[in-house]
């Protein structure tokens, strides 16, 4: 067999693919062939996490980390790095603090504080090749559980590990499996919830794209534990690449006899099928998800009965999230005692977060529970974009809350985040800076939940709609102080009365912003001003006649011809015509235009 000198890993996650990583792979293959180099292997992997600077190309064994690579750079990399052994400096990651090039990923601040368990294979193996997964002890956990453990012992081990549901609610996984085990039925089901729907979250997608076999293996283990022979992955059709790789992985696992009848000669039978969702947020709720899989409307029903008793097709069903499953094989390989030493007292292990918003290093990260928000935002995330001031971070997406400067030293775990009046959620982490209006943020999330509400219960269908209208009124400058009170009232009623998690948590962003940024609401209502300068109806662009040189630049750029004046004379903006696009502000070289 060929001994490879180098492995060239190209990120094949959705982000990097969108910036032509597939073209880069083809180009590498073509250039290597043309130069007759046959001891270098090009591999497409899953997400490296550093999406901000994609497409990423990593060269091993020397761990060189090239960022923002273009097809035209490929020839250069081959000539310099592969043939001559010199790193291509201009493509290396530049450390924003020291401004020096960082030649290998081990020295990048982004990776230093991370600990990768669920993402252990992402950006490392080729997700479309089962052999690479097996080489990394893939399916060994399944083998161990099937040959050495009874289902009860395996569930005990899971309970001991302290793993809790990574979909957001944090229910102990071992306990959940135990409930499903206790239910008696001729058929049970294992369901993987891959209906990731929070705006700005892409943890589950990246795991499925980068390491689909870990989820398949975990589902089989779960099947053995609860006594199920069938697994279903409920995945949204908006994730075509994840679907493709998952299907390839399932086919390969069947071919290798790791799914199907008599797995590893133990007599255990398990197989997995995919079910596509149409991308409705409510279908992430387990009862709605089950109804959707049955071909019914994606609407939640009251629990109990819990799915562990009566789920898919009326049979006991265990539903776990993608990231929860991705942790499972490692727990059995390394043992519950290894896993429960990571993290905090009640939150064990690590958590994957999708960093997004006004942060320098947008991307996918995994940190031990207990890491503080400050460490995540400033050390891993590299701080706020453009040197602006941090204002808030939203965890838990539209069901969560915002955390402010005072909460930055909160350790990230289920209890601490709840104590700070937010939630862990599934892992979306959206960072906001001083230019974000918190009333507008609340409205953004509420817009989302109003859109996604299934309409079954009144509090959610009507209540959230009314709240959204009040927020709209405030943003437009027509709000009253009574409106703010009404908002609070409605929010608590909806929390108490809505049928499912979607409705019950929909008011959270409103309450949380009211709590932390009450002054901003008051400014909108009383002063008719938006302190962050984001709400268009409450701000006007004005020209300072003392500074205006009459260069006419703004007047020429204005799309609605709202600026008038003669050359070398101060100009004026007609407020009636102005659409507040901000073009004039960006155009003025003399700082004569300001937002008020």
């Amino acid at each position, binding site marked *: 067999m060929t*001994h490879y*000198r180098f492995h060239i890993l190209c990120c094949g996650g959705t982000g990097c693919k969108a910036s032509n990583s597939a073209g880069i792979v083809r180009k590498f293959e073509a250039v290597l062939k043309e130069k007759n180099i046959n001891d270098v292997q090009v591999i497409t992997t899953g997400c490296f996490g550093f999406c901000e600077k994609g497409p990423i190309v990593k060269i091993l*064994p020397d761990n060189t980390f090239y960022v923002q690579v273009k097809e035209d750079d490929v020839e250069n990399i081959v000539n310099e790095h592969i043939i*001559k*052994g010199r790193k291509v400096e201009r493509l290396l990651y530049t450390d924003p603090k020291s401004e020096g090039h960082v030649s290998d990923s081990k020295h990048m601040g982004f990776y230093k504080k991370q600990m990768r368990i669920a993402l252990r294979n992402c950006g490392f193996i080729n997700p479309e090749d089962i052999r690479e997964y097996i*080489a990394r002890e893939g*399916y*060994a956990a399944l*083998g161990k559980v099937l040959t050495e453990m009874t289902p009860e012992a395996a569930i005990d081990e899971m309970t001991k590990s302290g793993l809790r549901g990574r979909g957001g609610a944090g229910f102990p996984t071992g306990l959940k499996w135990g409930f499903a085990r206790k239910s008696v039925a001729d058929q049970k089901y294992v369901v993987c919830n891959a209906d990731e729907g929070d705006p700005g979250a892409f943890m589950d997608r990246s795991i499925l794209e980068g390491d689909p076999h870990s989820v398949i293996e975990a589902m089989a283990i779960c099947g053995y534990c609860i006594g199920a022979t069938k697994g279903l992955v409920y995945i949204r059709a908006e994730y075509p690449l994840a679907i493709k790789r998952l299907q390839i992985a399932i086919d390969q696992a069947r071919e290798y006899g790791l799914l199907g009848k008599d797995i*590893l000669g133990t007599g255990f039978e398990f197989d997995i099928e995919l079910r596509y969702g149409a991308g409705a947020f409510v279908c992430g709720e387990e009862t709605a998800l089950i109804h959707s899989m049955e071909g019914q409307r994606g609407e939640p029903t009251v629990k109990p009965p819990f799915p562990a008793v009566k789920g898919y097709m009326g049979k006991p069903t265990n539903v776990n999230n993608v990231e929860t499953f991705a942790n499972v094989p490692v727990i059995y390989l390394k043992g519950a005692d290894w896993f429960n030493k990571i993290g905090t007292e009640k939150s064990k292990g690590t958590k994957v977060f999708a960093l997004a918003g006004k942060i320098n290093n947008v991307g996918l990260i995994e940190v031990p529970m207990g890491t503080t928000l400050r460490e995540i935002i400033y050390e891993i995330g590299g701080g706020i974009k453009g040197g602006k001031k941090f204002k808030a971070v939203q965890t838990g997406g539209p069901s969560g809350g915002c955390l402010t400067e005072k909460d930055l030293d909160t350790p990230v775990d289920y209890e601490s985040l709840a104590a700070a009046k937010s939630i862990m959620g599934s892992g979306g982490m959206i960072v906001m800076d001083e230019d974000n209006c918190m009333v507008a943020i609340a409205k953004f999330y509420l817009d989302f939940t109003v859109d996604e509400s299934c309409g079954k219960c009144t509090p959610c269908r009507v209540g959230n709609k009314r709240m959204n209208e009040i927020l709209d009124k405030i943003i437009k400058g027509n709000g009253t102080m009574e409106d703010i009170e009404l908002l609070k009232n409605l929010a608590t009623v909806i929390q108490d009365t809505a049928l499912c998690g979607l409705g019950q948590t929909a008011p959270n962003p409103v309450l949380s912003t009211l709590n932390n940024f009450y002054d901003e609401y008051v400014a909108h209502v009383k002063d008719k001003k938006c302190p962050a300068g984001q709400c268009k109806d409450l701000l006007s662009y004005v020209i300072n006649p003392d500074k205006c040189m009459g260069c006419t630049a703004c007047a020429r750029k204005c799309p609605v011809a709202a600026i008038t004046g003669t050359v070398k004379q101060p100009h004026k903006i007609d407020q009636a015509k102005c659409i507040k696009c901000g073009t004039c502000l960006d155009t003025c070289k003399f700082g004569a235009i300001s937002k008020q």
Partner: protein
Amino acid sequence: MAVKSLADLKKMSSEFKNTVSLRENGDNVDSLIQIKVAMATCGIASGAKEVMDFYLEELDKQGIKAVVTQTGCMGYCYAEPTIEVKLPGKDPIVFGHVNVEKASEILEKYIKNGELVEGIIPVNYETVK
């Protein structure tokens, strides 16, 4: 290609191991033996490629965990091919005039037993960190 038992799976895992071992080794390079072969024009012309291939094959055959990489010209063009060997926890040592025969001697004596062999080029410069 069916995996019929856990033993089968384990066998398969070790068979496939070398598809990812280069990457795994690269991940914890500091704890491994590192061999850098100078592969600039001068090095290649005097046979560095053969030396590199020798190490890649031989280390794999003998099951020794090591990272073999190439570097640019180290400046000792008079002594090509040159290689730099760094054992874990020790300072790197540069050897000159390394043909396959010499490479084998370095492997057997220095890499495996820590015995020094002829042909060491004293390091007479400092690297800017």
